[in-house]
């Protein structure tokens, strides 16, 4: 090979190209390579130091949920034809992946009741921030009004990126567990680019989405200024609840985004998963990311291509609607297969099961001494409690009994009013028996902590 290249040695190739001053000239300071079986053992040993949802009865949620992933998803995701191709730049040999994207987009529009969807974005919170950029491109206004009911990670991500967009984030507080409609109305004005809330919100409460949308659209321009365009109304949704909750498209929402993990994706300590992104048709050319579209080939045969690429960075460069290049195709595949597996009635049945178990768990737990509901709003798959005891200490006690009772609210939101808060998530994997076990363990842990606090 060297002779064909016309060099005397491999070294010569580098000597002729890399200036001497920036050659490393030593080995990297890393361990030597290992045989496959040793690497596997090392990774197995690391995995064994983690407590997975297989090893405890876990009620952790807050954005990612321990749903059952059907076996056929593992099988399909491991197929070389889905696992190992690049982005489908050559559509003639990528019809499988492109059609999956098209089906995924169809499923997401059905789920959200909106007309258009892209082929996925990175994940939930960054999808919220991407919706903020869409709004900026759409109306050029400067304010992003965000409900405090959004996931804290969504608000933080929005703040980080809004600084880049040259926009300001205004947070609207909650009242009785949901976005305070008066504060919401006060915050939205003629310079509001987008009004963003979560459904259900971070505390598990179902928001009055129609009312929030109505207020947002009415508020804008009501001060009589020249700018009479209503803000883009954005909802961060949890797709698994859309079998029973009124879809955003029927609530006056313009853009729906969300974390897709609950749809057939494993937890993976937080990623990779996918972000869903759907919108009203008028926003199609402002959307970020890849979009698959239908067309025909030279013989008139139906086929699919990446379309509307003139929005994208590789064509439009600094004028692109987003810098996104890599989407989450494999995770979105899991999403659409999962929705297909659930099917038209399955999504509703699952939603009703979660609703009933969530309600059962909330009543059961709030009946315990020293435990009360954080709010009285309807909940569908997750709910917040307030403990009359130190949450971290209670959680440690529960862990000793093999139960993870949920997320320490204040630890993630940092809000003083969330002191004592516990966020409990329900999936179809947590049976009544598990919930009863949680009630028993949590009740004992709270009692023990209160006792300890008294004697201290």
């Amino acid at each position, binding site marked *: 090979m060297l002779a064909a290249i016309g060099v005397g040695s491999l070294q010569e190739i580098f000597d002729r190209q890399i200036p001497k001053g920036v050659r490393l000239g030593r080995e990297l300071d890393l361990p030597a390579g290992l045989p496959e079986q040793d690497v596997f053992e090392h990774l197995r040993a690391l995995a064994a130091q983690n407590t997975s949802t297989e090893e405890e009865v876990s009620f952790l949620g807050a954005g990612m949920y321990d749903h059952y992933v059907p076996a056929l998803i593992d099988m399909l995701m491991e197929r070389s034809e889905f696992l*190992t191709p690049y982005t489908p730049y050559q559509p003639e040999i990528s019809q499988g992946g492109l059609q999956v994207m098209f089906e995924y987009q*169809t499923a997401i529009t059905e789920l959200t009741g909106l007309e258009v969807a892209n082929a996925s974005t990175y994940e939930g919170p960054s999808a919220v921030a991407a919706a903020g950029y869409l709004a900026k491109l759409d109306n050029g206004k400067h304010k992003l009004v965000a409900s405090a009911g959004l996931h804290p990670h969504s608000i933080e991500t929005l703040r980080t990126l809004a600084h880049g967009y040259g926009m300001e984030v205004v947070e609207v507080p909650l009242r009785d567990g949901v976005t305070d409609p008066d504060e919401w109305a006060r915050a939205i004005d003629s310079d509001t680019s987008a009004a963003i809330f979560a459904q259900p919100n971070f505390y598990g409460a179902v928001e009055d989405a129609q009312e929030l949308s109505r207020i947002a659209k009415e508020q804008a321009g009501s001060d009589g200024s020249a700018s009479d365009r209503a803000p883009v109304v954005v909802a961060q949704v949890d797709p698994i609840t859309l079998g029973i909750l009124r879809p955003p498209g029927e609530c006056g929402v313009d853009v729906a985004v969300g974390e897709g993990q609950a749809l057939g994706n494993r937890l993976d300590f937080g990623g990779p998963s996918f972000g869903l992104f759907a919108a009203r048709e008028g926003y199609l050319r402002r959307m970020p990311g890849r979009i698959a579209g239908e067309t025909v080939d030279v013989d008139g045969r139906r086929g699919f291509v990446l379309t509307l690429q003139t929005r994208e960075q590789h064509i439009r460069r600094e004028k692109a609607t987003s810098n996104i290049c890599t*989407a989450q195709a494999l995770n979105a595949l899991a999403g659409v297969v999962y929705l297909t597996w659930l099917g038209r009635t399955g999504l509703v049945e699952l939603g009703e099961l979660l609703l009933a178990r969530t309600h059962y768990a909330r009543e059961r737990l709030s009946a315990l001494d020293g435990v009360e509901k954080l709010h009285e709003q309807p909940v569908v798959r997750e709910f917040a409690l307030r403990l009359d005891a130190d949450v971290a200490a209670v959680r440690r006690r529960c862990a000793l009994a093999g139960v993870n009772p949920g997320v320490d609210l204040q630890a993630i939101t940092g809000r003083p009013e969330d002191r004592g808060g516990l966020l409990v998530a329900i999936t179809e994997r947590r049976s009544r028996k598990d919930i009863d076990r949680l009630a028993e363990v949590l009740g004992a842990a709270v009692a023990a902590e209160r006792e300890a606090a008294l004697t201290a």
Partner: protein
Amino acid sequence: MSDVNLADERLGGNPLARQRARTIFQKGAPGRRAFVCPEMDVPVAEVSELLPERFRRTSPARLPEVSEPEIVRHYVGLSKRNFDLDSGFYPLGSCTMKHNPRLHERAAALAGHARLHPLQDPEQAQGALELMWNLQGALSEIAGLPHVSLQPSAGSHGELAGVLLTRAYHEDRGESRHKVLTPDTAHGTNPATVTMAGLEVVKVATNADGGVDIDDLRAKADTDVACLMLTNPNTLGLFDPNIEQISEIVHGVGATLYYDGANLNAVMGLSRPGDMGFDIVHFNLHKSFTQPHGGGGPGSGPIAVSDRVAPFLPVPLVVRREDGTFDLDHERPRSIGRLRGFHGNYGCFVRAYAYICSLGADGLKDASETAVLNANYLLARLREKGIAEYLPLAYGELCMHEFVLSGGPMKRDLKLKTLDLAKRLLDFGFHPPTVYFPLLVEEALMVEPTETETRETLDAFADAIAEILREGARDPEIARGAPYTTPVRRLDEVAAAKHPVIREALG
């Protein structure tokens, strides 16, 4: 294969090849299903008691109604309409389509990784945090920069982090610099990122050798410049011989230097961005570090940075406490904040870490050396008579891990466009190179073979190119009509964009 007839003959071979595409929404029948819902084991109240009417969905989402066997057949059928890295050569420039070891999939699927909740207490996730810590350390060593954040979700997300870090760095010093320099050879994500981060792109010219035009850089480097974003080796596959001087000029005006790590596969263990003077580097774990591309994601785009940029890194960071345990540090007051939920694409970290453990220091260097050797060998084969007249090397003599040919002469002499050559390659069972990028090369073909291909494969690819050019000299119509053997033939992309149909119409 030497002519169209032979190609056409092959059409009959695969019953899947020419089926009319039907989506899953066009299959099944009312009432058909796969899912069996777990038992309703709690007292059943009326839904209306639990959820007021006005919050409820009134008509179900029109999802498919299909059985499990139908789902499996449908998606396995679709998979067979995809070309993939495990099936053949995929020399897509700047994408580093190297082999994806299956060990990584097995390791990532272990329950301790795959079913670990991101809000699990750090004490109960020590293995995951240790893995992230070790990966941070390895990436830091490879980059030659002391601090790493694993959070960004992909290369472009890492770029966004990098430009926001640069902005924060200057703002912290009380400076408001609004320009970012990018060469005209840059990946499209660079300028798009700059705009999203609220800064302004200023293009720097490329010199006759394919490197940064130093005079142009000098002219444009002033105290309004926040950063220079550079890929090195660049998208022409060339290591910039003036990198030290570039670094000096950029640092001289107080700007930072950003390294787009898309082309890192050329230099692992050979040369480090930190030693070249870069302040910020993003890695594409789905390129150099074997995270499978998944047909367009997931990716992962960690960043490594210098001391001066470190205070602004996104939260949380994985840290090692004095007692040797690992934790997530959220208390970083000067941080730019979060870029996404949770801690990044951990599943990709497991795979990248497994790769680094498998290869070790010498293996990583060997991988880059072999990638460069393979690229130069393939380049040499493509500079043979019968090919080079039509597809000359655009710049340079040797290359790093990839190279760019120009299809200009082919277009003039054979009346074949680069697109035609690319489409004809599909009939020969190869994924074409990246085409029409970088923009400054006429009819560009960007070829990156990677280190995991054999000499036989490289030879077969070169032979196929030669054959297509010979065929084109006889009858250019063949390539212009290609492909012939794929599930569909050339698709009308203009019509797709003009009247977008992006979802199935449901009755």
